């Protein structure tokens, strides 16, 4: 028994990934749940439009226990302006002061923000009329499904791709591929394309299923959604390829992929609203591709946001796609052609 326990500890000590899961994971979970796990939003960006915008903006800021942060005042605006601001995700609440009583338009696609805002306006009684846009019944499924599409793509892209790639290494066939007269780029494309197509198929299936089962609307452009999803796929496939390059077998690949998945599940904003996560932890969210895909998918599906309203998450996804995918492919290429191609080197005398 003693020998067995000793052997197990010795093996564990040398298995850095498992040690990472044993030590790193509890620390991560503690930090995330301790600081980030917060459904209470205390900073809601608000816009006031219409003739009394200035006056209302001042009043809103002094409402007791109000979480509002007035970021835009547009006396020339109207109801359409307010809706546009919400659609572009410039603010989460827009008050049109041109109506009597003023109408507070609330973005229903930001679930917890909307609930916080409604509670604040309810305290004002009939001084303000509340109208929820994009998710009038504040259905959780409407907000979750667009994000879950991204989560599923992350699973497929990262875990399945890394397994497929690392299998070649584990069975030694990667050397065979390296010796065959096939260009490394052809091998890499040939390995990645099937996963890209399968992930695309999954994405279409899950999106349609979400729409049918949960009545989730698709208010925006399919093209914009496709651009976001395509870029996101490159990022997660790149992560899968990267994981395969730092793993020697399938077990290691799954373990490593898990390290990339967990932060995305917890910090990308679809479980805990980004606005509720303190900056000490929130900065991590902005390095996670799922954060940006969720912005795009919720924006397109629920708010019908146009391309120019989603430029920031799309640009971020594009940058990540270029950096991660290129880096991962170059690393994988090194596995395929570890020799430097120089078949003659002079001997250097000592």
């Amino acid at each position: 028994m003693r020998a067995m326990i000793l052997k197990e500890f010795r093996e564990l000590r040398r298995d850095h990934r498992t040690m990472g899961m044993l030590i790193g994971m509890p620390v991560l979970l503690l930090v995330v749940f301790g600081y980030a796990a917060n459904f209470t939003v205390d900073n809601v960006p608000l816009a006031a439009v219409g003739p009394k915008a200035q006056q209302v903006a001042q009043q809103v800021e002094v409402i007791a226990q109000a979480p509002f942060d007035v970021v835009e005042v547009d006396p020339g605006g109207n109801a359409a302006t307010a809706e546009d601001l919400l659609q572009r995700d410039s603010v989460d609440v827009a008050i049109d002061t041109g109506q009597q009583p003023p109408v507070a338009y609330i973005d229903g696609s930001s679930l917890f923000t909307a609930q916080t805002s409604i509670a604040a306006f309810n305290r004002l009684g009939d001084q303000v009329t509340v109208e929820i846009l994009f998710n009038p019944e504040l259905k959780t499924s409407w907000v979750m499904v667009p994000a879950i599409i991204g989560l599923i793509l992350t699973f497929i892209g990262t875990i399945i791709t890394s397994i497929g790639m690392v299998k070649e290494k584990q069975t030694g066939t990667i050397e065979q591929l390296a010796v065959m007269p096939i260009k490394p780029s052809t091998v890499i494309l040939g390995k990645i394309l099937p996963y890209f197509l399968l992930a695309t198929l999954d994405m279409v299936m899950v999106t349609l299923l979400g729409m049918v089962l949960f009545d989730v609307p698709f208010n925006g452009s399919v093209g914009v959604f496709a651009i976001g999803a395509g870029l996101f796929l490159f990022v997660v496939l790149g992560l899968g390829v990267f994981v395969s390059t730092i793993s020697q077998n399938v077990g290691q690949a799954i373990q490593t992929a898990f390290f990339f998945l967990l932060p995305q599940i917890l910090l990308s904003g679809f479980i805990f609203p980004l606005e509720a996560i303190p900056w000490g932890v929130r900065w991590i969210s902005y390095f996670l591709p799922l954060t940006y895909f969720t912005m795009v998918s919720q924006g397109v599906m629920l708010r019908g946001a146009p391309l120019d309203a989603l430029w920031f998450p799309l640009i971020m996804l594009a940058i990540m796609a270029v950096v991660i995918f290129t880096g991962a492919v170059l690393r994988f290429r090194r596995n395929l052609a570890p020799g430097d191609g120089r078949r003659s080197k002079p001997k250097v005398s000592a």
Partner: protein
Amino acid sequence: MSAYELTVRFGHVLALDDVSLQTPTGQITAVVGGDGAGKTTLLEALVDLVPIEAGSVDSPARSTIGFMPAGAGSWSELSVDENVAFVGGSYGLATDVLTTRADDLLTRAGLSDVRDRLAGQLSGGMRKKLGFCLAMLHEPQLLILDEPSTGLDPVSRVELWRLISEAAARGTAVVLTTTYLDEAERAGTVLVLERGKALLSGSPQDVVSSYPGVIVQTDSPTRPQFAWRHGTGYREWWPDDPPKGSTTTALTLEDVSIVASLRQEVGS
């Protein structure tokens, strides 16, 4: 193909130290050595799978090299036919050419009845033979086989060697690694490696005949640093005349390889 004075280093470990190798057309060249001798590294250096620190490799185009790694050499979740189709397609073989060659190779390898079976479900011997067929599919000028017979039962080893010999007889230059000295004796040229250094090279006959000394069979060795257990007794190497009355036998390739290794160890 020729490799001259190859040196390969992995970090601080000198995996190959000034090793040269020639692979004549129509001949089998066997690279022999124990575990960690540098056999696989040498083959990998020949096909640019590891970076060389010094030396040069003069090898034919990749399209004319057949390579079978130390692993299975085939894709376990593809059937025999699917493996053939993938490799044939990768080498750009026309369908009719591929069909003819696959029929011929798989028949000679005794795999024609298992063409629909997944490679992962083949026995060890069958899987190695499939790996060999895949490496030979495009009729390479140079066939590189990394420990093709390791782990095989004696019958499978004989069958695989028949295929290898046939390939050499058809004009292919074959270079293979092995830990079995009886296999090395069948090769045209042998290179004995030990800890990355070439100890001996040449035809098995030349290597044995040019090696100095004799072997004494004894029950109580007097030079323990140059003696090793053989059956119930010992074989002991003497560089010149052994003690009078000793029972001497001729050197074999196995003796020469062991003695060369022991001499390197003791630095004599």
